[in-house]
């Protein structure tokens, strides 16, 4: 079992590393998606089916599309794959600083927290129990999260749609540019 975990973790970290090192944006995006799929595999390995399927549905199915759309729609040149500019010393230094800061915070948090030794009997939680707990005890929290996400979605739509030149009344806006 441990070998399987190491294999999944290796594949996940490997694809994440390759995504960062790659020079091709689309390849990086696809490798990032592979890494997310690896997270789902770890959930499956841990026996958390529900979370694993949700992870695949949300990350591999939906977020990946957003990432790919962003990459394809925001590129300035007409070449199918945009190459990232070669690394500079400044960028490398900034990356190393940011990365080490995040790592330090995470390491501090992990080292300072005390892990209680696990119960001898592993808790058997089914999807049904998770659903009942989510809907009964934490129903209010679930609703609030839903509202926040909806507001964020509406905000994103408004941000993306505010283009003064596009509208039914100004369809000839492009004519003055020869």
């Amino acid at each position, binding site marked *: 079992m441990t070998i399987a975990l190491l294999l999944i973790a290796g594949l996940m970290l490997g694809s994440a590393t390759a995504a960062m090192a790659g020079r091709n944006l689309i390849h990086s995006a*696809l490798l990032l998606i592979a890494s997310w799929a690896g997270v789902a595999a770890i959930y499956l390995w841990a026996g958390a089916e529900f979370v694993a399927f949700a992870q*695949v549905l949300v990350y591999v199915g939906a977020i*990946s*599309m957003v990432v*790919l759309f962003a990459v394809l729609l925001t590129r300035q040149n007409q070449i*199918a794959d945009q190459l990232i500019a070669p690394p500079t010393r400044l960028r490398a230094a900034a990356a190393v600083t940011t990365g080490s800061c995040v790592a330090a915070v995470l390491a501090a948090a992990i080292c300072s927290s005390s892990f209680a030794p696990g119960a001898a009997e592993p808790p058997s939680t089914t999807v049904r129990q998770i659903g009942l707990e989510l809907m009964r005890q934490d129903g209010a929290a679930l609703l609030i999260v839903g509202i926040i996400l909806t507001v964020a979605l509406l905000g994103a739509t408004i941000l993306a749609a505010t283009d003064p030149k596009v509208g039914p009344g100004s369809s000839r806006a492009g004519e003055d540019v020869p």
Partner: protein
Amino acid sequence: MIAAGPDSFLERAPLALRDWAVQLLPVPLQWLAHHVITIVAVLAVFGLFFAFTTIAERKLLARLQNRLGPNRTGLPWIKGLRLFGLSQPFADAVKAITKEDIVPAAADKILHFLAPVIVVGFSLMTFAVLPFGRQYLPVDLDAALLYFFAAGAATELAIFMAGWSSRNKYSLLAAMRALAQLISYELPLILSVVPVVLVTSTLSTKAIVIAQGTWSFGLLPHWFIFTPWGFAGFIIFLIAALAESNRSPFDLPEAESELVAGHLTEYSGFKYALFFMAEYFGLTALSGLGVTLFLGGWQAPCAFLQFIPSYAWFMMKLIGMIVFFIWVRGTLLRLRIDQLTRLSWQFLVPLALLNLGNAAFWVLTAQWAGPLQLVRWIVSAAIIVVPFILMGRSLTAGFAPRTYRYAP
């Protein structure tokens, strides 16, 4: 007539055959053989089903267009025997395998190769949670519905990979169209399924079929399609399933009059055949899900018809769905991309959300009896029919009725 009921010989025969084959092997290998036989059975049955769906589609479309369709393929070693062209899919398979595999020089070789593999792999994975019969469920998962949609999610990615890696304008445009279409219709598809989950309060496909397994007077089945919310959900599900499987009238990603063959432009030979196969597998799996959720799965329509094995009922309903999809393809015209997305976001998504409220009403009024039962049905039907008419009127205002200026 063979003994009626769930334990008849025909019902158990395939399982008995599998158990007999498994016990021939040594004990350590038995669990492996058990699973391998299940997988091979699903692959064989739905591989053949795919083959005959293609010939059925070609023949039916031909009849709808007043043609004959393929009718010449017989058996290679018997001259003069034509079999109505029924062996055409096998001839097509030989043709696809022996054709040259062309990869464009500028293409991204790895992604170009991976795309058809991923699309077939993931569309086959969805079959794992479909209950084909009373005891014929390959994998019994608690979260089966979630699994189904998770497995289906990766096919969008594969279509994008195919379109982008081909390094072809048409392919890339098609890939973007496909993504926009799949994202737009994923929402109504899932929203049309949620009412079923709400009413049965389970995500397991097995339990959903069992929940539909009763009859009024032994004649009227309690399938979800025969409730107001179930009927509306089924129609929304059908439309969204058509769009999800890229079929006419939603076949914009491969609109041949605009985009050559869309994301398949640079594919040839067996890889093209794999995409084709995945499309049919996806259609079959979605039809199977529709049958499971709304048409009572493997349940017989009348109590006295239970002597027919459950898997036969499932396959009959599945074939009915597929024939309906072929009929739609031969009848309706292709939509424009703006009409396509508008249909989803302005019409189907609000209706599906209303239908969700409708199902909640249905659950809350489960105790109503007598004349209140009639009120329950009328209110539930009104919740979905009134907004349907109002929204339809307001959305088509200014477009219809169409006047023909030059034709009489």
